[in-house]
């Protein structure tokens, strides 16, 4: 294998593919490497931990076709470190040579025949609006759980709705639901559960202007966009019945400017240390935010708001609240509540496409 290419393009491709590389070692040491395959002028770089595979194509000046596997971190570090401009790459025997400017590196390669055969993407393909899909991912991914002991909750549910596609994520403390009307990916009552980690990586790769193609297989999903492919194993199991959690109506309704609320929570959160919550005191025309950390101090801020309902104080985990306000979008948001112990519903004013349901924290 021998080729020449721009350092920047190679660095980007290696960096993206390396994000799927297994960092835990495991039973297949070859998975700590990135797989490089050169055919003509197209170099394809692939990293995988078998659950997630990221494959990125780069246009190069090819000399000799071939395949090899390089230690992922070292190869990325070298390409990132060398001078800008052309990088020359050649494999001879069991060594890869990387040279750029006056730098030369030789690296022991990993036998390429040990790299597992990765599944071919399913034939059925549907097109998605990349910008809309990326926006939807940004809204729901934070609500997915990072706790591997409940794998179902680490996934994002993609489910068919009568008028399109719905994305749902929950870690049992909050629930994020985003509807994508007019997006037909699944039909009937079909749904799949996609690891949020994979979708997070997809969101990084996804270029807003790009065409996005989704191929759903029985056990995996493949997202294809210009030059890159992200394949993820699907999570098997039944997602919680989230529909029953969404209240039909709530008597108290606070309407507030989203940016003002976001900034106020950010400031008050400074005094919500040691897992203490932020209290929202809702009164007509005013929202007060209070955080108290024993032996440290307290913060108080008032925000103009319109409030329809009984005077109420509800406390929330500040990080969960902040993430919810951040991803809800729009100029104004509403926070609908029943009492201090029931879930609160956060929405953007004038849009029903996204909702964020958040459980309060009990305070004395």
């Amino acid at each position, binding site marked *: 294998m021998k080729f020449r290419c721009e350092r920047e393009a190679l660095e980007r491709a290696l960096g993206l593919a390396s994000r799927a590389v297994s960092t835990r070692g495991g039973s297949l040491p070859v998975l700590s490497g990135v797989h490089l395959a050169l055919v003509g002028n197209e170099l394809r770089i692939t990293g995988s931990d078998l659950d997630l595979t990221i494959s990125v194509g780069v246009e190069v000046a090819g000399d000799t076709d071939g395949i090899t596997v390089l230690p992922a971190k070292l190869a990325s570090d070298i390409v990132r470190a060398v001078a800008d401009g052309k990088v020359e790459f050649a494999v001879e025997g069991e060594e890869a040579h990387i040279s750029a400017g006056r730098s030369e590196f030789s690296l022991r390669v990993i036998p390429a025949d040990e790299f597992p055969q990765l599944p071919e993407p399913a034939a059925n393909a549907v097109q998605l609006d990349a910008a809309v899909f990326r926006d939807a991912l940004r809204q729901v991914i934070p609500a997915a759980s990072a*706790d591997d*002991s409940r794998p179902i909750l680490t996934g994002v549910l993609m489910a068919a709705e009568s008028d399109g596609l719905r994305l749902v994520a929950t870690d*049992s403390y909050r629930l994020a639901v985003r509807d994508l009307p007019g997006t037909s990916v699944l039909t009937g009552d079909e749904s799949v559960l996609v690891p949020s980690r994979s979708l997070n990586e997809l969101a990084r790769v996804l270029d807003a202007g790009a065409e996005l193609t989704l191929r759903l297989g029985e056990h995996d999903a493949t997202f294809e966009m210009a030059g890159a492919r992200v394949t993820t194993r699907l999570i098997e199991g039944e997602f919680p019945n989230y529909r029953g959690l969404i209240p039909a109506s709530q008597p108290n309704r606070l309407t507030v400017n989203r940016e003002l609320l976001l900034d106020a929570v950010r400031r008050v959160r400074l005094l919500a240390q040691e897992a203490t919550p932020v209290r929202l005191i809702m009164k007509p025309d005013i929202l007060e935010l209070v955080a108290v950390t024993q032996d440290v101090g307290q913060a108080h801020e008032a925000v103009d708001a319109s409030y329809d309902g009984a005077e109420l104080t509800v406390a929330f985990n500040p990080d969960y609240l902040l993430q919810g306000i951040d991803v809800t979008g729009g100029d104004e948001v509403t926070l609908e509540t029943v009492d201090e112990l029931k879930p609160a519903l956060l929405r953007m004013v004038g849009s029903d496409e996204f909702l964020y349901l958040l*459980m309060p*924290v*009990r305070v004395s």
Partner: protein
Amino acid sequence: MRLVIARCTVDYDGRLTAHLPTAIRLIMVKADGCVAIHADGGAYKPLNWMNAPNRLREEEGTWTVTNPKGEKLTIAMEEVLADSDHDLGIDPGLQKDGVESHLQELLAANPGALRHGFRLVRREYPTDIGPVDLLCRDDEGNAFAVEIKRRGEIDGVEQLTRYLDFLNRDPTLRPVRGVFAAQEIKPQAKVLATDRDIDWVVVDYDELRGIESDELRLF
């Protein structure tokens, strides 16, 4: 243990200076000499304190606590509301819970916490090399051997692997799958368990005991 409830001000002078304005507080003077000033809140943490060794000098309306580092705590008593002494005797020490036997007991009483549909066949199910913690069956009658640890490490997975080897020789049980349950599981143990097709479950001890967290859940 001497307990004094008093309206007082407190001044600390040492590495820094701190002032507690007038309020009613609880002053604890422990048998070992520690002095701690508590408010009616803030869990276990005193507002101010002076560890032993120290010297407590009581004068009319003022207590002064000093220590060899030159730190000084001055408590100005405005009104003493209660002052009592209690002999607490010798403390037996902290008995930490979360032990494996209690976890085993709790999971035996509620095997569904491990997996929906699990029912208990027997605790301490015997094998030729010792008993496995729990033997359960799922909705479809499949057998599962459960090994329970407080901290899940590679050794525990190895132990469960040996039990499974013996249990799978029993034609009335096989195939028997393994479930490795612990309060926390090391990443290496998770990898080894997954590699051996053993499920692992992190169990929440407080939740099993029914202790309510302040952080409420949707489900």
